[in-house]
């Protein structure tokens, strides 16, 4: 085989790019454009340091595991709480019986999602004191409809509503959020691209080949997730749950893999029921999550216990983030998938 082909296929790749990361980078850029010289708040550098320390620790752990031929991390370091495991395993049992709607020739899988994310913006303090800058925070909501053709090599369509300021923290927040929205102008987008390669970029959606390659055995699946996420996130277990939530929210995961992902989540130490009656975008379910103690952040997945259906996922901060109070939801996504006969 050609060495360039081998190189292209070298698997060092994360299947999806997190929207929160893209949004954060965009906010940094816009902040810089409007107020050059104002840096992002200090919390960020602290987080970066924490991440790099954890990454170094993870590398060390993995090196030791590889060196001692301990090949898997799943199953021997504890698991989710009994209650969380029961919810997840029940959902898995219901999901495996689910038959995903078939996307016939010429039809599309339509993945509708509502996405909430946090925006941070640096504002100049008008008191005139040198260096006395402040930050404001708010959340934006964006609705997206992704149309995936039966033959995924054909043209996909992605309608994005653009970001609409939704929740405000503090007096200045609303003013700045609307000012920003005005500066950016019309942000709704209609995108089309073969094989999901929007923005002239390689597709950020998991391919059918990638999805087929994930083991359906939960322990093997979790081991693979741990290995694929070496050096990412703030802890291997926290990152594994974030990875599962990210994959599920694409709406492209087939029922057998969704079921295996639920079972894999049930094997992650620290995963517990975080809310028995969680409401997300007006839908009620049970929230299963894990607190990342390094950053006081919680990743939840919300499941309808009656059907095993994923309602969505959310991120909650357990410590104040600037003007955002502890306990606030700083991001969530809900998804709904249907089969339609045409794309716009």
């Amino acid at each position: 085989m050609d060495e360039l082909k081998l190189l292209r296929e070298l698997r060092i790749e994360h299947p999806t790019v997190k929207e929160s990361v893209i949004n954060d980078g965009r906010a940094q850029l816009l902040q810089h454009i409007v107020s050059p010289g104002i840096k992002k708040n200090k919390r960020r550098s602290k987080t970066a340091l924490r991440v790099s320390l954890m990454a170094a620790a993870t590398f060390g752990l993995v090196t030791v595991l590889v060196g001692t031929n301990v090949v898997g991390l799943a199953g021997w370091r504890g698991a989710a709480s009994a209650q969380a495991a029961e919810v997840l395993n029940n959902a898995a049992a219901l999901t495996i019986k689910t038959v995903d709607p078939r996307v016939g020739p010429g039809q599309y899988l339509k993945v509708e999602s509502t996405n909430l994310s946090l925006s941070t913006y640096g504002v100049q303090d008008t008191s005139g004191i040198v260096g006395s800058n402040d930050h404001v925070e708010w959340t934006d909501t964006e609705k997206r409809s992704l149309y995936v053709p039966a033959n995924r090599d054909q043209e996909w369509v992605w309608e994005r509503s653009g970001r609409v300021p939704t929740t405000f923290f503090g007096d200045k927040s609303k003013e700045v959020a609307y000012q920003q929205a005005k500066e950016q102008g019309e942000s709704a987008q209609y995108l089309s691209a073969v094989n999901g390669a929007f923005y002239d970029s390689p597709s950020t959606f998991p391919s059918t080949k990638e999805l087929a390659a994930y083991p359906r055995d939960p322990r093997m699946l979790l081991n693979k997730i741990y290995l694929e996420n070496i050096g990412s996130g703030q802890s291997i277990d926290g990152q594994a749950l974030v990875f599962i939530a990210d994959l599920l929210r694409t709406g492209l995961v087939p029922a057998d893999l969704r079921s295996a992902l639920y079972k894999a989540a049930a094997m992650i130490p620290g995963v517990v029921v975080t809310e028995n009656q969680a409401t997300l975008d007006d839908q009620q379910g049970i929230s299963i999550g894990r607190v990342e103690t390094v950053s006081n952040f919680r990743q939840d997945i919300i499941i309808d216990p009656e059907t095993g259906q994923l309602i969505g996922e959310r991120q909650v901060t357990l410590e104040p983030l600037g003007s955002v109070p502890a306990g606030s939801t700083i991001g969530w996504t809900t998804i709904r998938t249907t089969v339609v006969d045409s794309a716009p």
Partner: protein
Amino acid sequence: MTNDSDIIRRSRERPAAFAELYDKYARMIYRYAFRRAGESAAEDVMAGTFLAAFEGRDSFDHAWDDARPWLFGIATNLLRRHHRTEAKILKIIAKSSGRDAYTDSTEQIAEQLDAIATTSALALALCKLSPVDRECILLYAWADLTYEGIAQATNVPVGTVRSRMNRARRKLKDAAAALRNNTEEADHGRTQVTA
């Protein structure tokens, strides 16, 4: 259709227009940086690339419609700060790739073992390349730049890109060939035993 050069020109009058370039290419830069130096570095490199690009937008050569070589050039410079992490990742992949591979079919096991060995050999060979040769071949293979694009990104003549590519390809090819030879020898040995 608006090209990248138009967006950059427009951003002189209306700076926020520069965000259009971000929307087009942030994911691409992120994925490239992620593959090379991991998640933490990727976030910094992606954000840093666009901040530096915005600051230096007057230096953009408008003879190019496409801003990718320019952006990947900035990202490549920023990635040099992460060369230790990159080396560490490649070494870990060389040692650990495929240790999670499980299957119940003998034929698939053989295929998986081949894939594991190839990944390890390639990761090791990549690690041993000189930094400029590695940047060059990865801009080609992972960033999909042309030779001319790489020349612009790394600020060297196209002839230099050709010689770097030839050298890097030869070394990777040698690594893959050495692996094939070993495999063939091993197969041969097994055949003799069973005969």
